């Protein structure tokens, strides 16, 4: 009985691990960057406004809504990856977090928080302009 159990385990483990031949190339494990990933704060603001326009005209557009949720989640990271100071970053992060909480709640529609999206977009544009005028620029 014990040998049967051991044999079963030895045979079963590889199958359940989903293993077979090891990968051919390391490229198989590349992180795939989503197409709507913003390259900088200005791009993030632009993408938010584009999708806001789509959702205004077609509130049932799930793809645009989903992408806006993604953008809201990503904005703090995009903004932190620049030379913004912590004080300049906090309002962007706080608004993104608030928006994110609203969007997680199923009883809030995109149109209910449109002003917040516009405000976030304005914050990003303003922060980007400030960096440009200070000559510090984006991280890349």
């Amino acid at each position, binding site marked *: 009985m014990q040998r049967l159990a051991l044999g079963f385990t030895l045979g079963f483990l590889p199958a359940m*691990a*989903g293993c077979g031949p090891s990968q051919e190339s390391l*490229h198989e*494990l590349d992180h795939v960057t989503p197409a709507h990933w913003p390259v900088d704060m200005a791009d993030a603001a632009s993408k938010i406004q584009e999708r806001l326009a789509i959702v205004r005209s077609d509130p049932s557009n799930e793809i645009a809504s989903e992408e806006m949720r993604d953008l809201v*989640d990503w904005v703090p990271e995009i903004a932190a990856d620049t*030379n913004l100071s912590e004080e300049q970053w906090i309002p962007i*992060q706080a608004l993104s977090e608030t928006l994110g909480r609203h969007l997680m709640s199923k009883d809030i529609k995109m149109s209910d928080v449109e002003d917040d999206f516009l405000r976030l977009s304005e914050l990003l544009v303003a922060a980007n302009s400030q960096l440009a005028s200070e000559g510090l620029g984006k*991280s890349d």
Partner: protein
Amino acid sequence: MDVLIAGGMVRALQGLAAASPTLLVGMLVAAVLRYYLGPQGTVRFFGGDSLRSLPQSWLIGMLLPVCSIGVIPIIREMKRVGIRPGAITAFAVSAPLFNPLSLMYGLTLSRPLVIIGFALASLLVVTAMGIIWDRTTSWQSGDHPREGGPIGLKRLGVCAIFMSRELYGPTGGLTLVAIAGLFLLGVVLPHGALQSSVEQLDPWAPLKMALVAFPIYATPMLTMSQLGMMFAHGNSPGAAFCLLLLGTGVNLATIWWIARSYGWKPMAIWCMTLFLLVLACAYAVDRPLIPPGIEPAGHTHAFDIYTNPFQQSSPLSFSLVVDTTLKSIGWADFIGLGIAAIVLVFGVVFRTMVSVRVAAFETSTPDSSQATATGLNRHVSSRLVGTICLGGLVAFSIVSCYAYYPAPNEVLEEMRLARTEVLSGAASGDFKRTLHWIPILDEWSRKLEVGHAIRYFQLRPYQQMQAFLLRKKLELLEHAVEHALEAASKDTELGKIQLEEERQEIKVLQAEISKNGRRLIDAFAPVK
């Protein structure tokens, strides 16, 4: 040398080294329970014979710094004094999951709610399991050995003899059984297996992990870092829970010991009950705990440590095997191994060459039931001494957090050195140096967060974000460097083009990591 066997041996040796510090702690705790707390004190320590012993054993397990191998001598002692099997199970499964050190680490890797949720879910699992399993064993309440035991300075010697005989004895044997699980996985699972097996929203992910987890041995710290990697890559939270309880909480030695102590049928019931309870909890938390805003990466490196470290096509050499083995062994593991080796040598001596003298020494030790207080030689209750010993151990593990997670200014200096190695390696094309230093810099970034949190009792979102950005860029750099090495090995026109593309990517990441370094210093500047 066969790749399969070499891979299995490497994983087994790495596991043995990782286990040594907490194994020593486990044997010390068992000695304290046996010779200081005594049978009645031990039973009371773990909550007596009532159902309260289940959550109480769980709580004690959370505080003691032991792994699923270090827990073995303790549960042997618990069985010897007649503690209820459900409480033994609760302790055996929960003790390896968390301790103050790993809890601190875990709170910076995953969302705190997740770690707390997992801890409470483990309480639910072990309590339910303990209640069910108690009914299947022949345990009788009140069946405890008599009090009495060595007293005086010689008691220290008796403890040392006990520990060394345990290591060259039942505990040592069970340790090898546990490590055999790692050997088995290293042989059976090829390099890169499990990387795509536990994806988010995959309904089979928790089940797959549950089935593979039993032979796993992992220290609490390793598991915390794996949980963090799984959440960072958007893997299945349910699979993460299965890894925690079944991978970290249990190993082959635990199962073997239960079978030998309680019988094969109770063991089968124990395994099935644990498996089903964990799976039920895993599926319950799988969707609710999906982290928001994390794009599933489609793979994870969290389980690479269990698979064969060598590719099938890799040319093997003895030096490569040695280098690969030593790569993951830290200074604490080396010290633990050294001390364990000394204890083992004494164990061999005590059990073989001088066994008669040892027996004579033990019988000559005054017994607590006969000792009388004379002069300055006072009878201090074993309960008091034992409680101080165990309380001291818990306090020591909390204090050691401050040593393991240094102050931010010290960590930033270490990070500066590690970053220099990473970037200079990338700039000079010495990619192997870069690959060596990336995990070191990654580790320091986590210690930076914890070191700051435990000293200032806060960790601001900006600080967490900058540390996260560093780790993300390090992972991208690691991928780019690996691709560059792969392209360089092709020696074709396409390979040269790919190599050039990767070099450009590496150059961009070098600049980003350098800028992130300055932001980290600003973010973690001393709190005024």
